[in-house]
């Protein structure tokens, strides 16, 4: 607005102002970009180092860990895959898929019950559903271990899936509930007039209408499950049932100093979730915005 009022007669002063403003702008850009590039190196260098050294022999990592590999050993990846990573990968996939589906389905059910009905004890149930968000798993590790033994599910996939689902429900209910609250009452009322049951309204209207938010729920649950370490370490004993995070510890011990293969194993473990993130960034960020991803 101010600028439009300036008449051509002011131009020397104006151009001086513009010039000094531009200088300031350049100085500002330079300092901001310096910080960004510095931090970029801090983050990307170790990752880059992992990528290039995962293609080298141990001797080459020792003699020249900074340079590109003389020959790119894809065989490291094959070796890693055959030394257990394939098994861990399968286990992680099974546990992650089951956890995601169960968590999102049960949370959607819960969110539906909490948003579309009036009933006694609604507030209490809401608090119970959300309250778990503040409790960290470390605190109940011993009783949980005992419980899993008592249920006879120790050292099975269920020993991971059930606690994972229970700990991910609060954040997922929070996420889905917010979306369900937005749906106007009239929509279901007309469905009820047509003789639909609440179950039908849930499966035919609420689930299809909220696919993006359900998908966000799947993504943040997948992220958590794929990377979870402590339960995976403690509730599974058999090497053949371990998920990637716990299996990698075994993998490291088995390989001793075969570092190129170890790094290749790390790469294989990290790639699926990074790929998922790069393609679905939008859903990750939405999940983040509605609460904490890490739990």
């Amino acid at each position, binding site marked *: 607005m101010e600028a439009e009022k300036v008449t051509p007669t002011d131009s020397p002063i104006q151009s001086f102002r513009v010039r000094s403003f531009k200088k300031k702008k350049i100085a500002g*850009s330079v300092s901001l970009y310096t*910080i960004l590039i510095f931090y970029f190196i801090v983050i990307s260098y170790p990752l880059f180092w992992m990528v290039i050294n995962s293609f080298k022999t141990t001797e080459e990592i020792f003699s020249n860990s900074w340079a590109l590999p003389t020959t790119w050993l894809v065989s490291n990846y094959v070796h890693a895959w055959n030394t257990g990573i394939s098994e861990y990968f399968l286990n992680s996939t099974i546990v992650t898929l089951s956890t995601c589906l169960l968590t999102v389905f049960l949370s959607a059910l819960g969110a539906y019950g909490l948003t579309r009905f009036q009933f006694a004890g609604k507030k209490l149930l809401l608090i119970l559903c959300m309250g778990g968000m503040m409790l960290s798993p470390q605190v109940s590790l011993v009783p949980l271990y005992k419980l899993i033994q008592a249920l006879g599910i120790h050292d099975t996939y269920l020993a991971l899936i059930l606690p994972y689902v229970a700990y991910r429900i609060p954040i997922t209910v929070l996420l889905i509930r917010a979306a369900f609250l937005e749906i106007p009452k009239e929509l279901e009322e007309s469905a009820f007039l047509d003789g639909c049951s609440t179950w039908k309204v849930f499966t035919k209207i609420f689930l299809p209408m909220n696919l993006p938010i359900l998908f966000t729920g799947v993504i943040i649950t997948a992220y958590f499950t794929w990377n979870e370490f402590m339960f995976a370490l403690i509730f599974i004993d058999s090497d053949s049932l371990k998920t990637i995070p716990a299996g990698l510890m075994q993998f490291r011990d088995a390989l001793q100093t075969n570092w190129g293969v170890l790094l290749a194993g790390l790469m294989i473990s990290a790639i699926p979730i990074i790929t998922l993130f790069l393609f679905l960034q939008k859903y990750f960020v939405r999940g983040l915005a509605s609460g904490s991803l*890490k739990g």
Partner: protein
Amino acid sequence: MTLRKMAPYLYIAPCILLMGLFVYYPIVENFRFAFYEFSAFSPDKVFVGFENFLALFQDEVFYIAIKNNIWYAVISIICQVFGGLVLAAILEDPLTRLFSGFFRTTFFLPVIISITVIALLFSFVYNPDIGILNSFLRLLGLEEWTRAWLGESETAIFAVIAVSQWQSIGYIMMLFIVAIQSIPQELYEAADIDGANKFYKFLHITVPQVKEMLFVATLITLTGAFTVFNEPYILTSGGPGNASEVLGTLLYKSAFFRDEMGYASAIATIILILSLVAAMIQMKLFKTGKED
């Protein structure tokens, strides 16, 4: 009760049942367990009153762990909350708009990668012979600074804490980016007309406007600092000696190496109390901040 009336309870029941069994019941049990002495595979428990807690308060490793958790909290608040906010503000600055997407994605990458992968990668970064860190110091001519970062008791815990920062700054940064994006643009425009500089705008517009997120971020960081387990366990297992022990690793060792389940429950109780106290102090501080 008709089915219609039962319906909401039926919808919510699976969530409540699962959480009741795997979240709430263990928390309550943990308080009880802390007063008993027992081992993992025997059904017998002996009531010992406060003995576990008394033993804990006389255990010098417990104080090392507490001290390390406090270091964790302090450094995490500085790096993640302050550093994350600054990075977010820079990436949301109009001057960096051209490349901000690229930087944002890169800075967030460590958050996505499993902590096991990152911790094993950093055991290479810290490797005395081939590690990036020592090589870099040699390159700068700082030969005398090189050391076995994870192997020396003075540096071990800080090397571990640094890994956590490296991984988590991007996460808190992303939370702040989301918060900054919802600040009305007019506030900045008005400040521009008054000729305010960036520093002023950061302190007087950005910071007050993201106060809610500041609270959430501090809470997440503090809780994380008192419950940390993965990084110290994978990188040092609490060593050398007990130099990098934290409450989480001490709990794990008591329960699953020494089979002192009651003692471990007592440690868990302390962790719970510490994180609740941190949360309460937080709420109080931010409440009083809101009144003025």
